[in-house]
């Protein structure tokens, strides 16, 4: 064990392997990009729903972001697999959060976990709050948050021990430690403890100078924090604000003391308004983290998924909507408009003159009102405002036409080439039986790995996942509501991102034609909800 590949990686970087003379087998390439999981299949015994429903899976509403991940876990956008399960020459990293309550730490740690897992980095988030809740049932004694008493230290030890186990024994690559971490002394000690074990540390401090953000976070905590399940909202809100008040005098900001000069840390101010990196001799992976932070915003709105009409159209064809399709478009639009109105959103009340940024007004007519003395939102940045609604479609006529009713209401419509359906290649118009008959060996391979398999000329789900990465980050940037009208194949991959699905699950997800799926964002985990499309004809 002591001279294993693991040791080699610790010294030379992860994903790397020593170069040794290999047996002289001149021949075909044996190791393909996905060779390490060829035989790994989901355990159907533990998931009876898969086996029973002809391979079609109803959308579950469980967010997988906190799920334990096995070493053979392959995530949707992973570029390749390695024997160790770790990617890139990035080493093991513990990301340690710091910041008062109400600064969006939980949201940050969970969404970062989601993104890193999606990229294929074995990541797990450890919330100190979970340990507190487990050990001190319903006891919200403020002392537990502040003082360095034995009980608190015991919780921290438990949590840190789990982090170390994850990194050392479960082949984890990034552990995210979500806690207030108020004391400089503790931070320095943590840093030393991890460094001794060849684990890099990176502190991320979330600080907020904009009271509006804090108030919003407090509301959302009182509503949805696991600490306040079954609490009266007002009482929860009061308790939470008392907690913040109690902690504030103790909190020591990062970068105030000399001790900190040794630590690598990122200061994030007002959730991305300003990001400062200090002592960064960071690797590729950490830069990717910063990349995510630049695009991460606190979400107020939801993402709505709706299938486009008529999925059976040949890939290269681009017919307009027929009568039935128009009816579908109207029903879909009306259902969502009614739903959003019932949620108190008033996107559809605007008269055309009021909505300056709509698609219809040309940039020329705007010019006069546009002052050069102040900062404006970038022309292409959608959804900056939490009270905004944007519709995404593919570039195909039938999806673009489906948005007509929204367009009439001056809603922003964005056509994205990445939202086009998965190219089915030569098997395009065939049924599964026909494929099985015509391409038996290919079909067999497809069954083994429906996520990565490409039929001739076709795209795989994996190709889609890589393709939509920019859209995913844009989605993370947008605070308001988004409706995505696209082919089912694309929706599956988006859904897979938001619910932290593994690539085994994605191909068998099923979106019904007569439903809109709402994805609700929550600091701790996302939730999905079904909205039936009503008939307005």
């Amino acid at each position, binding site marked *: 064990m002591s001279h294993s590949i693991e040791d080699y990686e610790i010294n030379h970087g992860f994903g790397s392997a020593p170069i040794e003379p290999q047996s002289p087998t001149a021949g*075909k390439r044996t190791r393909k990009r996905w060779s390490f999981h060829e035989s790994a299949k989901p355990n159907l015994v533990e998931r009876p729903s898969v086996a029973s429903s002809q391979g079609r899976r109803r959308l579950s509403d469980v967010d997988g972001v906190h799920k334990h991940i096995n070493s053979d876990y392959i995530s949707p956008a992973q570029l390749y697999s390695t024997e160790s399960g770790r990617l890139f020459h990035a080493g093991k990293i513990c990301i340690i959060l710091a910041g008062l309550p109400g600064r969006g730490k939980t949201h940050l740690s969970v969404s970062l976990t989601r993104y890193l897992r999606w990229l294929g980095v074995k990541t797990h988030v450890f919330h100190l709050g979970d340990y507190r809740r487990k050990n001190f049932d319903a006891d919200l004694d403020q002392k537990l948050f502040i003082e360095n008493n034995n009980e608190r230290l015991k919780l921290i030890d438990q949590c840190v021990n789990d982090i170390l186990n994850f990194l050392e024994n479960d082949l984890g690559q990034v552990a995210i430690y979500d806690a207030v971490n108020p004391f400089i002394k503790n931070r320095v000690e943590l840093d030393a403890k991890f460094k001794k074990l060849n684990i890099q540390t990176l502190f991320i401090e979330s600080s907020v100078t904009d009271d509006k953000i804090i108030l919003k976070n407090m509301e959302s905590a009182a509503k949805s924090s696991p600490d306040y399940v079954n609490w009266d909202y007002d009482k929860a809100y009061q308790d939470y604000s008392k907690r913040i008040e109690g902690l504030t005098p103790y909190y020591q900001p990062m970068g105030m003391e000399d001790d900190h000069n040794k630590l690598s840390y990122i200061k994030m101010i007002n959730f991305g308004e300003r990001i400062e990196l200090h002592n960064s001799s960071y690797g*590729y992976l950490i830069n990717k983290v910063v990349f995510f932070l630049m695009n991460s915003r606190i979400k107020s709105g939801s993402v709505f998924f709706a299938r486009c009409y008529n999925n059976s159209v040949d890939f290269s064809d681009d017919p307009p909507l027929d009568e039935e399709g128009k009816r579908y478009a109207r029903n879909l639009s009306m259902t969502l408009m009614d739903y959003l109105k019932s949620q108190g959103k008033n996107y559809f009340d605007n008269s055309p003159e009021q909505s300056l940024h709509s698609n219809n007004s040309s940039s020329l007519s705007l010019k006069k009102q546009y002052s050069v003395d102040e900062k404006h939102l970038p022309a*292409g940045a959608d959804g900056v405002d939490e009270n905004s609604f944007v519709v995404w479609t593919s570039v195909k006529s039938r999806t673009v036409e489906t948005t007509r009713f929204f367009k009439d209401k001056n809603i922003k419509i964005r056509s994205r080439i990445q939202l086009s359906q998965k190219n089915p290649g030569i098997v395009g118009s065939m049924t599964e039986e026909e494929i099985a008959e015509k391409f038996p060996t290919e079909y067999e391979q497809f069954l083994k790995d429906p996520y990565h398999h490409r039929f001739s000329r076709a795209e795989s789900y994996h190709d889609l996942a890589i393709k939509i990465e920019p859209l995913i980050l844009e989605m993370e940037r947008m605070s308001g509501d988004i409706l995505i009208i696209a082919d089912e194949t694309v929706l599956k991959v988006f859904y897979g991102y938001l619910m932290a699905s593994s690539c085994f699950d994605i191909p068998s997800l099923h979106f019904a034609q007569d439903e809109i799926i709402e994805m609700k964002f929550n600091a701790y985990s996302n939730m999905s909800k079904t909205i039936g499309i009503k008939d307005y004809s």
Partner: protein
Amino acid sequence: MPVYSISHVENVRVCVVMVGLPARGKSLIAQKIVRYLSWLSIKSKCFNVGSYRRKIAGVTGADADATFFSPNNEEGLKFRQEAVNQAIKDMMSWFLDENGVVGILDATNSTRDRRSKILKLCRENYIEPLFLESWCNDEDLIKQNILDVKTTSPDYINKDSEFALSDFMKRIKFYETNYQTLNQDIDSNLSFIKLVNVNTQIILNRIESYLESRIVYYVMNLHIKPRAIYLSRHGESLYNLTGKIGGDADLSERGWKYAKKLPELVLKSLGEENINTDLTVWTSTLNRTQQTASFLPYKNKLQWKALDELDAGECDGMTYEEIEKQFPEDFKARDDNKYEYRYRGGESYRDIVIRLEPIIMELERQENILIITHQAVLRCIYAYFMNVPQEESPWMSIPLHTLIKLEPRAYSTIVSRIKADIPAVSTYKEKGTSQLGEFDNITSKSRDLLKGSSDGK
């Protein structure tokens, strides 16, 4: 069709406004951003105010010595102002007429006054200004940059090198007198990136669009220390001898010879004085590149799956003649659009670019490095460093048993070829034939791109 490129480009136009004293690596960064974005199929262009100044001042005969840059030299000021105006004007018409997406204004832009003028102009034209400052007080680093600039800057062509050095120092002094760095309090309303001492500290302020975040992300991975990047294909393999593509074959006898000679070639190029340099060596996970690296004395050797050869899918292990016979349509489709063509069950050049992106980022962070990989992957890496257009890069000839050395400089990248003098087959396939070899009737203008470079010693 830029299927995989950054989305949203139909809406966003960004002007990256460089900020910083001379010799802070601004031009290098600016050039790299253009190269990277073009590689990702995003239209971008750099507008270097210095070259406008040379053009304008050159006509009237004003000589470029440091006094030209004195804040008291009115004629100099006038020329410099005119150069900036001209550069900005050209950039604006490029945005409008050619649908440019990212324009880079490469100048010192050292005063707040100048910057606010540019800011207003951008806002008038619906262009997002993104300020990018390289700030540095590390004397060694600055000196290195000065030496680099004075040997390659167009301002000092045919000038005595002592003169160039002292003159350039003087010029920097002039700029220092009224330089205003970006300040997070005063400039809190701007979108800016401030790089302090080559990324030991980075401040990102109001990065408000995805495209901007992408540019920032790239810049974070850059460094401006001088270095050499060595590229080599594996030695001749047993598959190469029979004209088969793909596979995981061992080296041929001549291939092993190349592997044995490689350490000497590298050392000669590095210079005897660098005998103790620990060069980083990267290979793919395939036998032939690892065997090629096996005699190199360096400790830091790593294999990457992302450097594996283009996966020819069902055609793996076939010769081009066999492919032409068995899959005639595919064979033709590939010749017609080699960059986009994806082998049945395999990959296209574009697929390689996508999987190489993480590697490119890591590569930007490295210093001296030797990469031993495969023909298609090398074409993509070379295209990135040398800005070779997509439609041409798959047709470049990269011969076996040849070490390529790239030295990125502020104004250009120096390429040299070091031949091992060990014969090997040609694996080059011209468009429209299944025969291997470089024939005289060239159809691909990019084939001989590499041959134009100097023979390194």
